[in-house]
């Protein structure tokens, strides 16, 4: 008989994979992208191509420079590009878009080691960087402006359902985020725009809060992350546009992740 592999147990693996995770999440975004293309027209198309193409291009270049094997096929960078396109204003000038993409892909992803190693959400960081350094360029994106329009709102809900069906996220995390966000928006005077807030809350809960790489490592921790992120988003919403409030709140909570991980270990109720 020939010599067989003697790798350690287990000898079978689930069919899940990193690439499947990111590509399926990107696929779930399809209804939102379709609705935003329909609403935002050519400007958004341009943004989408720039952001997604730019992300892939920057990763390829960055990996080439550092002589590492490219990870384009795992879909992580593509998802970053899609997300960035959805949270940047569709008419942002080309240099600003490229700066945001560069910050997201090269500085946040690649400099920290690529997929799985970054400490803040890359797309959100790209957006926040633009907000902080070039405030004039960073208005509200078309998705957030038109979230109250029925086709866009329906598309957001449809995308959310697609992603929920993939069973990648804890149901109660989404529930906590959306409830607290809407409650805060309502109590802080956003009652007249409640549909817009609902659309933003659902999109944020499903597609921004739930990037696993920068989430805590327990169910309880993830729930606490979502609760606090929603609370901060609601409070910041008093002074800033929804997109800015949402992005800053998530970035703030990204900073707390190591602390949450240490305090909320599996099987313990320490710190709750």
């Amino acid at each position: 008989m020939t010599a067989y592999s003697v790798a350690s147990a287990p000898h079978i693996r689930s069919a899940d994979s990193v690439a499947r995770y990111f590509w399926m999440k990107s696929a779930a975004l399809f209804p939102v992208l379709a609705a935003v293309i329909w609403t935002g027209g050519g400007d958004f198309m341009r943004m989408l191509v720039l952001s997604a193409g730019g992300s892939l291009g920057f990763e390829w270049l960055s990996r080439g420079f550092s002589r590492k094997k490219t990870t384009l096929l795992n879909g992580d960078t593509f998802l970053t590009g899609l997300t960035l396109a959805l949270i940047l204003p569709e008419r942002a000038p080309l240099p600003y878009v490229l700066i945001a993409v560069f910050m997201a892909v090269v500085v946040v992803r690649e400099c920290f080691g690529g997929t799985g190693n970054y400490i803040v959400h890359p797309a959100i960081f790209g957006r926040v960087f633009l907000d902080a350094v070039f405030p004039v360029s960073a208005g509200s994106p078309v998705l957030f402006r038109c979230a109250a329009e029925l086709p866009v709102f329906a598309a957001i809900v449809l995308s959310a359902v697609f992603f929920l069906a993939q069973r990648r996220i804890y149901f109660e995390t989404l529930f906590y985020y959306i409830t607290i966000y809407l409650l805060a928006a309502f109590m802080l005077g956003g009652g007249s725009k409640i549909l817009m807030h609902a659309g933003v809350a659902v999109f944020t809960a499903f597609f921004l809060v739930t990037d696993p790489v920068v989430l805590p490592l327990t169910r309880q921790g993830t729930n606490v992350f979502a609760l606090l992120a929603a609370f901060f988003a609601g409070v910041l919403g008093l002074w800033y546009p929804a997109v800015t409030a949402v992005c800053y709140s998530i970035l703030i909570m990204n900073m707390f992740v190591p602390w949450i991980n240490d305090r909320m270990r599996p099987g313990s109720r320490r710190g709750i």
Partner: protein
Amino acid sequence: MSGSVRLERKKSSTLLNTLKRPHTVKKVRIPLTSGEETLMFPAVKNGDVIERGAKIASPEGEQGSPLFSGIAGKVKLVERTKNGNMVCTHIEVTAPNDFCQTASVLPELRKDAEKLPCRELRSIFRERGLLTTDGRAEPLHKIISGSPSTIKTIVINGCEPEPYVTSEQVLMTSYPTEVLRGAEILRRAAEAEKVIFLIEDAERELFELIKSKIYLLKWDRFEAQKVPAIYPMGTDNFLPGQLSINSAVLNASTAYAAYEAVYLHKPFFERVVTVGGECVAEPRNLWLPLGISIRDALQLCKGLLREPAKLIVGGPMKGVAQKDGEGVVMAGTDAVLALPKEIAGESAEKPCIRCNRCVDACPVFLSPVMITLAAEKNSFEVSREWNVEACIECGLCSFVCPSKRPMLELIAKAKKGIATGS
């Protein structure tokens, strides 16, 4: 349910074919160990011709169990030099082609079996070389001879959560009364109060069969309980709730071996083994003598359909991959699997994306991700802070990991690092 996974069962292929006792085994090679590393001495000489069931080795002292040959044939002692002395490491029994391996005449059923005192039962277990048929493979008399107050319940573990493996299920379905009688012997030997049969909820027919047999025998000290068919329930005696407290957890095949030892005076030299996997031509359960090689076991199932990626002794979750077919079936071997590349092939490792799947799946509520990320950097003290020593090494974290990280290897590395103080 958190802390467990319902694995694809893949049991139907081995259940299609009936349990069979092959009579064409020509060679066994039995290592001289008895459960733990007890010193064993050959009870036969080179060239001796022995019968099936003959004693071939005796342990030093009272703790070990003797070994018996599962086939009739000619003895060859395999020796090697250790500390300047020749030490026997294996005993080979080879049957010439004209040797008949058909079953000898069945001994008379012992009539007073139900009246034997516990001391005598334990002595029978020791003399007949009974070992537990789980991963421990320890002498049975050692497991149940604790002080009588410690074992209140005998738990007969009928759970087989690993895919492909059906040896316990087939044995219980084929010989339910014998297994029950064996369990009663174990109860009396351990002076326990009751016996609980654990059957997976996916095996409804087996559960009803055992329940009906208990009802027919009118043994009110017996009960059957269903447990969810989730991994790792039942493996290495990992059981829910209070079941393991003050209990001796034993497999149904151990109960059957106890029945045969007491009622039929039969030494322990064979067990039911599932020979399966997609590469096996005729997957089925077989009575195999201890010491038969994996290659021969596969041949008894008409060989291989195609070249496997892995040969595994045990289930696909916890079994040990073999480099060739020379490994042998022992008391704790419940399965021999030949799995193809598409099932057991190795995938490239990707970086951890912190998806929490391993944390959610861990049945003992650890954080495999934190433990293994620390172990990767040789920070074993951090792994210890995350309680790596409590890991039961069920392999679920590796199974669910989308990044295909070698979690179990890293956990073993961390445990070793802590043990050696590096």
